[in-house]
């Protein structure tokens, strides 16, 4: 298994910059997510690691060896695509065995390795079936089996669950993560689905317009986003922003937005102009005496919790509260922000200002 290191990696297609000068490391045994909207450069980054695209400039190291210009076949990695292509004329066993047979491995060894992989994936009972009649889940397991059987240094996965329906996707996501926990193989996984990234990843790199905006553990990105893009892309509903013109001196612990004062974590830098206070939906609380008044425009029942859509003088907000709270459309409420959780952003650059709360992360 392997560490993967990316240094100043850059990729252009003609005038279009797909990936701008990224540098980061994926540790041995890590489940690492590349997350972002379509066109953000995540798949291009993965394909460069795989050797399916060559970088315009920069270096890629797998276990310390520079492989940036090497073809895919010399990198000892396994690539799993969204659309798993199985050989339709071969049965399950021979599909899984194929990469070993083509390496010229002995029949006894192949048989043993296929049996091991089948046991890991729980597909021993279908080994002798043709792949044609299999369910979507079993086809996916066979495709994984074919990737695992070679025991490559790393697995690279490009939205492998993207084509599955929601219920099934949830189950396969759990299976994939459990498989990773058993095998401990370095895995790089591309997705546009933030929930999938949060659920499965040890760390997430959030990409936008070819740039890695932030790398960190799921909870860290959620709590302390480095940019407004990360704050908005992670979380459902996303982080709320209360924008306005404000003056902020270093060392202060409150901010005034359009006449409304909020306590915030002590800032470590000064800023002025267009700023925004970012607050997650579950950190809005309803209290009668809060200065910020709001009207309830919609509620969305979600079982354990409900989402309450509000209009306020500072813009529209969404709050997440327990379903036990009785709240009605049209009602007027006071809204309090949990001061310990707030992040202030510079709107022009989208960057989070460093505060006592997030300085360990940014």
């Amino acid at each position, binding site marked *: 298994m392997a560490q993967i290191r990316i240094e100043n990696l850059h990729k252009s297609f003609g005038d279009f910059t797909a990936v701008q000068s990224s540098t980061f490391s994926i540790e041995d045994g890590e489940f690492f997510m590349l997350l972002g*909207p*379509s066109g953000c450069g995540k798949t291009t980054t993965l394909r460069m690691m795989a050797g399916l695209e060559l970088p315009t400039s920069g270096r890629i190291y797998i276990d310390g060896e520079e492989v940036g210009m090497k073809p895919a076949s010399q990198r000892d990695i396994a690539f799993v695509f969204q659309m798993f292509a199985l050989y339709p004329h071969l049965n399950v066993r021979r599909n899984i065995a194929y990469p070993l047979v083509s390496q010229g491995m002995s029949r006894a060894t192949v048989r043993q390795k296929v049996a091991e992989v089948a046991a890991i994936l729980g597909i021993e009972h279908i080994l002798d079936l043709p792949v044609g009649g299999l369910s979507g889940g079993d086809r996916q397991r066979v495709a994984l089996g074919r990737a695992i059987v070679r025991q490559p240094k790393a697995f690279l996965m490009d939205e492998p669950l993207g084509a599955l*329906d*929601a*219920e099934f996707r*949830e189950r396969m996501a759990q299976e994939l*993560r459990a498989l990773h*926990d058993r095998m401990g193989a370095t895995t790089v996984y591309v997705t*546009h*689905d*933030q*929930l999938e990234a*949060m*659920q499965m990843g040890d760390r997430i790199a959030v990409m936008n317009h070819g740039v890695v905006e932030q790398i960190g*553990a*799921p*909870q860290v990105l*959620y*709590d302390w986003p480095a940019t407004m893009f990360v704050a908005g892309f*992670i*979380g*459902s*509903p996303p982080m709320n922003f209360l924008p306005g013109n404000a003056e902020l001196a270093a060392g202060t612990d409150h901010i005034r937005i359009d006449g409304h004062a909020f306590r915030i974590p002590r800032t470590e830098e000064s800023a002025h102009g267009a700023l925004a206070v970012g607050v*997650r*939906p*579950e950190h809005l609380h309803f209290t009668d005496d809060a200065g910020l008044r709001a009207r309830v425009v*919609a509620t*969305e*029942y*979600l*079982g*354990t919790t409900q*989402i309450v*859509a509000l209009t306020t003088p500072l813009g529209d907000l969404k709050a*997440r509260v327990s*379903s036990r709270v009785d709240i009605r459309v049209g009602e007027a409420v006071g809204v309090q922000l949990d001061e310990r959780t707030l992040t202030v952003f510079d709107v022009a650059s989208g960057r989070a200002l460093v505060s006592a709360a997030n300085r360990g992360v940014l």
Partner: protein
Amino acid sequence: MAQVVLDGVSKRFGSTVALDALSLTIPDGAFVVLLGPTGAGKTTTLRLIAGLDQPDAGAVLMDGRLMGQAAPAQRNVAMVFQQYSLYPHLTVEQNLAFPLRSPLSRLTSEQIDRRVREVAEMLQIAHKLGNKATALSGGEMQRVSIGRALVRNPSIYLMDEPLSSLDAKLRADLRLELKAIHAGSGATLLYVTHDQTEAMTMATHIGVLENGRVTQFGSPRDVYENPVSLSAARRLGQPRINVLPADLFGPAPPNARWLGLRPEQIRLGQGQDATVVRVERLGDQTRLHLVFRNHDIVTVTDAHTALVGGEVIRIEPDRPFYFDASDTRLI
């Protein structure tokens, strides 16, 4: 708008029973979401109401009138499908106006223009009216196909997974829009989906379909908090309800076969020891994957819990559900 009734409707395709004497009343002005696994009969139900298929037995009534063999055009229904089918050579405006220009509708050009503009504004595509349909993003195209249904004033809107091909952000936006459109117009809507979030957030009533029958019909809160069967309980809730042997935690009521525990029915910190296998941090909440006497249990705790894999935590059922051997809810 109209009340729509399905009365003992059956439909077979070859040897497959799609609908099995299904009865369902869609109240006038309701937003009914049919929820069920693949093959439960959701889409067949829509197609029978639309007149695209005919039932083998039973009747479809709209405002008390028997539909019989009436063709789709005679039923005054508007359908939206998962795959938007716009006229590629027409502009957004022409696509939206198309249903109104049918000889059946008898509207003046001014009336049509006004209606198209209203709907375009409601769906936030007014600035795209002059664009060719092919020059739109996927989300915009789906708005136009929803808009093409909304320009009409049908007895019922029938929607078959209209949001499932859109990305998460757009789905969330359109969920709120559809709900607001329904609230503002008093339209009757029948909506088919796999997605429980759509069902929970938009529906006035959820119909749970299982094997061609409606097993439960009620408000989202009612179906979530008071499921009549194991299958109904499994349709809603994220993470999914834990289904365990009835006596796993201690004595069970007579005839109980299964114990059903949603996360809020598991009290943490008291009761019996369970092992934490994995801690999954989702931001606003953290999911705990537990093993209790060789059974997997998933529950939810504070986002910032200090628990890590390998630790032991006490758990205890809190007002759980019990189901009998036929999956019917007992308590």
